[in-house]
């Protein structure tokens, strides 16, 4: 060693350092931690799996979809939030939408058009339109109004592209009736798919919808796509439907919601939320 030039010695030491530290920090440390964690907190360390009748039905920490094969909500179950993980609540492909707060203009699908691979053109929904569409669907499911600010009655983003001589309701494909007939004296037209409206000035229109009946978490996707919780308000909105479907007393369902609500830790950390899988399991039991 001592005879080697110093830069070679440094690299030999570096190689040895990486090897030694890898063994200590990359092998011994995780192995020991796993051993102790498995011994002390076996259930947690293995994913907090919930069992029902001897079969595992998921993890208490990981959200699930409560939909049928067609993706429609199963009415006797409380529904989770929208999810951007794979086809929804796929833990092998966790993700958020990553869409921005001003993502409000759709790319409308051109009927009959195909992309390079021969698939039908599906366009691209903006985040605003996703919110409006979800709100309308949840409203319909729960028998309340799905109206919200910046949404059209037909459930897309209420956004105009304004040109000097006309205005276009850019998310409403013709032959839809625009949500307003005129904007500052300009006639509002429906949007023709495939036409480029980029040059127009973007004007989202708030409209006169008051406080929406459908809560925020019901229309937004979470960060992980696996959010196991819904808000207390969203659970409350779903309670009448679930009670009717199951022929249960509404008070009983509300009691169960209360029992499966996780409050703020120490009274100030996080937000109160309802664990959907555990709530649905409790319903199945009662």
């Amino acid at each position, binding site marked *: 060693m001592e005879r080697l030039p110093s830069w070679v010695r*440094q*690299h030999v*030491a*570096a190689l040895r*350092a990486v090897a030694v*530290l890898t063994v200590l*920090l*990359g*092998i011994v*440390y*995780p192995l020991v*931690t*796993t051993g*102790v*964690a*498995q011994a*002390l*907190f076996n259930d*947690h*360390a293995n*994913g907090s*799996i919930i069992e029902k009748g001897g*079969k595992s*039905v998921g*993890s208490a*920490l990981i*959200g*699930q979809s409560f939909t049928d094969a067609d993706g429609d909500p199963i009415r006797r179950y409380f529904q989770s939030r929208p999810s951007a993980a794979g086809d929804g609540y*796929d*833990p*092998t492909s*966790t993700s*958020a*939408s*990553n*869409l921005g*707060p*001003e*993502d409000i203009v759709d790319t409308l699908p051109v009927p009959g058009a195909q992309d390079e691979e021969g698939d039908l053109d599906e366009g691209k929904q903006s*985040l605003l339109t996703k919110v409006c569409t979800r709100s309308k669907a949840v409203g319909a499911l729960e028998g309340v109004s799905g109206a*919200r*600010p910046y949404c059209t009655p037909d459930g897309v*983003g209420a956004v105009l592209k304004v040109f000097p001589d006309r205005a276009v309701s850019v998310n409403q494909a013709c032959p839809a009736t625009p949500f307003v007939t005129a904007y500052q004296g300009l006639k509002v037209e429906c949007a023709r798919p495939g036409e480029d409206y980029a040059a127009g000035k*973007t004007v989202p229109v708030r409209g006169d919808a008051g406080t*929406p009946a459908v809560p*925020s978490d019901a*229309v*937004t*996707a*979470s*960060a*992980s796509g*696996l959010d196991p919780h819904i808000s207390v308000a969203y659970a409350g909105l779903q309670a009448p439907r679930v009670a009717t479907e199951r022929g249960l007393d509404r008070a009983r369902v509300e009691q169960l919601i209360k029992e499966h609500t996780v409050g*703020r830790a120490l*009274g*100030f*950390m*996080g*937000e109160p939320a309802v664990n959907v899988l555990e709530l649905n*399991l409790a319903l199945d039991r009662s």
Partner: protein
Amino acid sequence: MGATPAGMIFIVSLIAALALVWKPFGDHMYRVYSTSRHNRVERVVYRLLGVRTDMEQSWPVYARGLLAFSVVSILVVYGVQRLQNKLPLSLGMEPVTDHIAWNTAISFVTNTNWQAYSGESTMGHLTQMAALAVQNFVSAAVGMAVAVALVRGFARRRSSTIGNFWVDLVRGSLRVLLPIAFAGALVLVAGGLVQNFSDVQEVGTLTGGTQGITGGPVASQEVIKELGTNGGGFYNANSAHPFENPTSWTNWFEIFLILVIPFSLTRTFGKLVGQVRQGYAILAVMAVLALASVLLTNVFELSGNATVPQAAGAALEGKELRFGVSNSATFAASTTLTSTGAVNSIHDSYTPFGGMMTLLNMMLGEVAPGGVGAGLYGMLILAVITVFVAGLMVGRTPEYLGKKIGAREIKLASLYLLVTPVLVLVGTAFAMGSAEQRASMLNTGPHGLSEVLYAFTSASNNNGSAFAGLTVNTPWYDVALGLCMLFGRFLPMILVLALAGSLAAQAPVREGAGTLPTHRPQFVGLVIGVTVILVALTFLPALALGPIAEGLS
């Protein structure tokens, strides 16, 4: 209790906890880096390394050791990823593609943890724990080593050496990081994190479908990912994933882990230079900037001022319900104020000004409190610049901690401050100049520019968080961002070590009537002013075209 008061108590409780450990933990690190005794494990390690611990190193030797260690680390991490299908615990994962493996190797060695891949579908367990998580430890220890070397430069008189790199590396890893990581990992498992070596476990769901539950040594990696301000998630969803961050209190604990070393190092600094009050001053600068940023991010997110949050009723897109808006914003500010880059919510979907805060935090140079070690040396560079500016104003030779800030010192400090802005702005300009690279943007308009600007800011400052709508697993972005991470990490480090060497060689000057006291509120205010003005002058035009344009439209 409303969401806002609860969120404020959350912040106050974090401050209280950090204040509580500041002195004992800072003193502990002081002893780690200044004692001459090696413990038994360390002596074995040094023998295996074949290094002499009785000899200290001059700054070029120290820097060469650091670079040699980092080069070897990059090669090893690259190699493990490329060969993972031939190694145990691969879970059947393919070898990682060359450009992603290269980018990831640099990313973890530079303490950035930028992730151009999705953990659960790319990396086997062995790659995660024996390649990536090892770098979470040692890259953090390297950062602390450089910071301590710089502080020694201030503390020593007429010395030709600044410490021994191998000793600093091993002590940082084994004495500072490892014990907290072990205890912290168990706390996290108690909170619900998984810690096993299972493959994906198919379980039936309540409605008769199936769901693949992903396992792995997650807690042991999560804890060091936060503690070492690394940020690379085991899963794609990072700290938003219920298996990485299952409850509101694990969220609190993870934020605490992120902030504890960077803040406590100011105490270590004060002890090492023999004037604890100097540590208070640096702490005050960091704390004022950090608190302002955390509060502003909270205000912007809670008010939800943008079209989609208004339509939804709250800025909940890309946020987890168990954390809520306020705690998510606090995490986002903490992760970008340090060099962590872990996320528990999706910055891309933040309100324009909330998202801008995360960008701005990184543009500050991650000094409030910054990455482990990197935050302290970054802040000391700003203190050097400040005494220089103050010296110019009153016409005195600037000095800091008894050392003259001469031409050589100020050149090194100025170069340090130029490196990242050049990388960020030139990189963004190149990407925006090419139609092919622009096509990677998910969002259009100003938000698209923000995505690209964020990517280069994050890489060059070694943060690692993203406006993740941008598709970055292309060869061009992997290479460009990899280079930004590499230069953004090691050029500043070499400059800092050179500065340490030149300071250590000086004889201290006696404090005179013209010396600017650097422990008083006046100096704290000056450093804050210099920091904010430097950042504003450098980045305001870019911010005006991105988040500000979006927020005001």
